[in-house]
């Protein structure tokens, strides 16, 4: 029977190599090794960065690190308590803004939202999520620092962080709310429970884990933000709970210490980085494990 394509001249036994096979097999091997090494490189970089933070940061960590304020220039010792307090109080205020706003948005999008308005909301959230954080800093500066409050303040910092958190909270929560089966809603509505009580009393509690995940994700992201705080909360050497004036934060503290010429401050910067990475790493790990389990 004549060959259709006439492409292959002779049948080769399977034990015999095809023309160009050696080269092709080499290329295949090389490609695989290169691809595996890129993955290895990615992992190595993380290991390298994290191990540096741990090794350089660990010596800075002692009780005073968490309980004392910074010492004046050139004096050893002291800690970063003001920065920790500042970061926590700004995160608290930011959560107070972002969690209700994010939850409300998520509820609207998953339970009510239809049509052009919902579409516009999603679009706005996407844009906000992709916004460079420094731009958000400039915005909050021009709104609050320049106008409403009139000075650098913890409130402005918290608002900037809240704007960063809202898209994360609302998108995560919306996704989770969509997973809540309709039967649950209908079951409750059929009992004569009003829609809003169904959502608050049945839908939200069912999606509790997802809501917590969203909040933790957004905290992990906001807790490490530096650039917007530089433009809004500015920073403060001293312990302060006053959110209407400039306030310290861990990320800004790292920046100020790193670029200063004192060895002891560099160690403090690494120590602060270690604290930040540990807390944020734990938050991410927990949420990661939680979402993994939820998916299974």
């Amino acid at each position, binding site marked *: 029977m004549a060959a259709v394509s006439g492409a292959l001249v002779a049948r080769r036994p399977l034990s015999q190599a095809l023309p160009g096979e050696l080269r*092709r*097999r080499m290329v*295949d091997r090389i*490609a*695989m090794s*290169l*691809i*595996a*090494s*890129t*993955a290895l*490189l*990615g*992992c190595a970089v*993380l290991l390298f*960065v994290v191990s540096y*933070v741990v090794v*350089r940061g660990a010596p800075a960590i002692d009780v005073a690190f968490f309980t004392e304020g910074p010492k004046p220039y050139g004096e050893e010792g002291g800690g970063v308590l003001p920065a920790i307090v500042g970061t926590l109080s700004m995160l608290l205020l930011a959560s107070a803004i972002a969690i209700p706003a*994010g939850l*409300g*948005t998520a*509820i*609207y999008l998953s339970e*009510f939202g239809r049509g052009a*308005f919902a579409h516009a*909301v999603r679009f*706005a959230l*996407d844009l*906000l999520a*992709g*916004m*460079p954080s*420094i*731009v958000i800093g*400039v*915005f909050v500066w*021009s709104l609050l620092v320049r106008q409403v409050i009139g000075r650098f303040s913890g409130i402005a910092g918290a608002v900037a962080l809240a*704007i960063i958190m809202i898209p994360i909270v609302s998108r995560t929560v919306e996704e989770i709310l969509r997973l809540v089966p309709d039967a649950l809603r209908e079951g409750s509505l059929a009992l004569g429970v009003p*829609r*809003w*009580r169904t959502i*608050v009393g049945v839908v939200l509690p069912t999606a509790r884990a997802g809501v917590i995940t969203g909040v933790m994700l957004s905290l992990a992201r906001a*807790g*490490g*933000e*530096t*650039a917007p705080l*530089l*433009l809004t909360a500015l920073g403060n050497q001293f312990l302060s709970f006053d959110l209407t004036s400039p306030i310290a934060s861990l*990320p800004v503290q*790292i*920046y100020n210490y*790193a*670029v200063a010429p004192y060895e002891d401050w560099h160690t403090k*910067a690494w120590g602060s*980085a270690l604290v*930040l*990475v540990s807390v*944020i*790493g734990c938050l991410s790990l927990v949420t990661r494990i939680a979402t993994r389990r939820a998916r299974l």
Partner: protein
Amino acid sequence: MSGRGDRCFELTAAGAAAAAIATLGALALLLLVYSWPSIARYGLSFFTTTDWDPVAERFGAAHFVYGTVATSIVALLLATPVGVGAALFIGEYAPLRLAEPVSFVVELLAVIPSIVYGLWGFFVLAPFMRSSVEPALRDSVGQVPIVGTLFSGPIVGKDLLVAGVILAIMILPTVTAISREVLRAVPDTQREGMLALGATKWEAIRHAVLPYARGGIAGALGLGLARALGETMAVTMVVGNSSSRITGSLFTPGYTMSSAIANQFTEAAKAIHFAALVEVALVLLLVATIINLFARLLVSRFASGPVGA
């Protein structure tokens, strides 16, 4: 009774949702208003000159734009092979037991705050680049005509190249994670179709998987690029923040748009200086948003299948 409760509840939720739109609108509007003095006064020369002199009130931001573009391109050039490669490893090569941990570790890179990368870049990467990598580059590639310009001149260690490397690390998880999702969406029938023709694994990837996925991977790179453009702290700490010249050498200490804002904002004393910095932020906003939207479009169009398939 319940009708009114429902109505109130829905309106509250809608109000929260509307806040997102309002924030975005206010953001764009305020930036425009605050930068207007600068836009009106300098016009296009803002983007064509490199003279940034607050004392003389001359503002040209071309070198900021150049710094952002140069560092982002370096980042993309470095992160593309590594990020797509890692995604290929996770999606195509690694046994399942290995794929999960590797992708987890690479994605953890995204969790580390920018400032920590900055710290690491400042104390670890920059000195290493100055003492080892950059001299080696200057002595090898730097000797080649034309291309060599990129790697010529005095080595300071805080320059566009170092910033590009830091950015590459920072966008690596974005590129990897999205590329991985894109590869996952390539139908197995494409891989198997090529394998059944007698392709090796790499040939199936090269001739079937990658061509099929190229739109989505371009989107992944776009999202990485958008992140690189707006990244601030890590870049600010290693980019040098000094030169106002565009030299063509990556060894030049430069500025990026975001680092210029971070560096000068709190020190700016004159209204026009603020306006100029806000204009830089506005440009950053527009560029990042456009690239982001375009990249999202590419990814979502890919997710709904390639043209005609």
